[in-house]
């Protein structure tokens, strides 16, 4: 459904005075999403995971330079095509209720989302009602303003705005920010059901644990690139390929809680070689000369020259 290949995004930024800085925020990023599949994109803040969503939706700022390929249903996703598909075939579940219009009752916003998605005018009312009951939202919620709906309800409203249309691809950007575990489970469940209904779902999150609860595949982002796209079971089965993915798993509190020291490289000073090389316990000279390309190891793509089959 969606294929992202060698995507790079950079910004030219003016520092104090006239000095220019080139910020490379996404470097050779790859992702593949099929229908009926939840693909989690996991990474820390600054790993480029939200920018990927913006790139797919075509809402990057105009000073962004983009290269690489984004295919949606086999056709290149150009700016025009993005504009015509956004909110229709491709829908976003935003991060927080603050993305909604604070001055408009939520019922009307879901209604508008349906219209924007191209639902026939005669069907909109029925579709909105159906979506409200589908997400256990009382019809009295329709009259409420965003600030009046409780945290759990707000989550369902956000999912409803994306699900009311007939989108084929749903992008959920950090849909469980610091939520209580019950709410996290509920939101993830909604994503799973959207996938079961035939959609492709991208779950963008910092929370590896949440990702593993629902995803079929987990794409691990780091410093703007895809380091590994693992099958969810690879984590529990000890079948991970990239040193960073292994470290991420090891660092969970329920595992060893041991971190790798250091931080992601800055986007204005990326190393020539592997982006993880300054923190990698397995680094050799060969890692420093060029960016490892994505290759298949034990059936999954990984960007590490020393990952073993």
């Amino acid at each position, binding site marked *: 459904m969606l294929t992202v290949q060698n995507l790079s995004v950079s910004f030219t930024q003016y520092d104090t005075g006239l000095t220019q800085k080139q910020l490379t925020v996404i470097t050779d990023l790859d992702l593949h999403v099929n229908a009926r599949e939840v693909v989690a994109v*996991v*990474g*820390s*803040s*600054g*790993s480029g995971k939200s920018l990927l969503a913006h790139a797919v939706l075509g809402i990057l700022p105009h000073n962004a330079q983009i290269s690489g390929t984004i295919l949606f249903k086999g056709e290149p996703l150009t700016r025009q095509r993005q504009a015509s598909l956004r909110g229709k075939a491709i829908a976003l579940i935003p991060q927080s209720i603050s993305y909604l219009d604070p001055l408009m009752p939520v019922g009307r916003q879901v209604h508008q989302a349906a219209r924007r998605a191209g639902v026939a005018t005669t069907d909109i009312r029925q579709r909105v009602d159906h979506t409200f009951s589908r997400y256990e939202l009382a019809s009295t919620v329709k009259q409420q303003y965003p600030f009046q709906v409780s*945290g759990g309800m707000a989550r369902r409203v956000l999912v409803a705005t994306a699900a009311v249309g007939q989108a084929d691809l749903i992008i959920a950007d950090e849909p469980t*920010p*610091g*939520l*209580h*575990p*019950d709410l996290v489970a509920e939101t993830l469940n909604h994503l799973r059901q959207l996938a079961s209904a035939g959609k492709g779902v991208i779950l963008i999150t*910092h*929370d*590896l*644990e949440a990702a593993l609860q629902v995803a079929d595949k987990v794409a691990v982002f780091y410093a703007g690139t895809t380091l590994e796209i693992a099958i969810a079971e690879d984590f529990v089965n000890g079948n991970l390929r990239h040193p*960073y993915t292994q*470290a*991420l*798993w090891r*660092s*969970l*509190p*329920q595992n060893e*809680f*041991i*971190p*790798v*020291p*250091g*931080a*992601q490289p*800055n986007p204005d000073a990326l190393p020539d070689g592997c982006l993880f090389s300054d923190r990698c316990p397995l680094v050799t000279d060969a890692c420093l000369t060029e960016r490892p390309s994505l290759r298949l190891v034990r059936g999954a793509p990984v960007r590490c020259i020393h990952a073993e089959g």
Partner: protein
Amino acid sequence: MLKGEQLSFRYSPHHSWVLQDFNIQIAPSEIVGLLGPSGFGKTTVGKLLAGYLAPTSGSVTVEGQPLPTRGSCPVQLVFQHPELAMNPRWRIRQVLAEGQSPAPELLQALSIDSSWLSRWTHELSGGELQRIAVARSLNAHTRYLIADEMTAMLDANTQALIWQAVLDYVRQHEIGMLVISHEAPLLKRVCDRIIHIE
């Protein structure tokens, strides 16, 4: 001992109680977890103990003394959003100086890169900024640290990195901690005991 006794809080007599008759004690070197759903006043407990809010009734004491009203507070609070706790017009160097120059070992344990010091707060990622907030809060006057969802928005590796640095530091300096979180595995990993609010 950091003690909150019969703590109650509401914004005004017209508002309902956010917290009522809550008691808590944290000993030096002790790490206490506070677990419970949102909306049960956990964050208020943290703010009261750190002096960010004054209790409507009840008292907060540190080693038997009320919290000082001026100077550096012995009870420091780190919360989920470091960007909200920093002056956006300052460079990182200035932000850190508020904490009266944190120990170099601490900066190193947090993997704070010296190149960050000349940057503006918006140039660092959330995980990098939270390391700065933690370094600032652990200064020579700090006796107790309240961590309110301190790593809730961070990836697992950054979470573990910050926690290992904090745990080492508080053990060494006999600092007591209150850890507010709804992540049970994290609390189980770091706390000596856990209080469940229902």
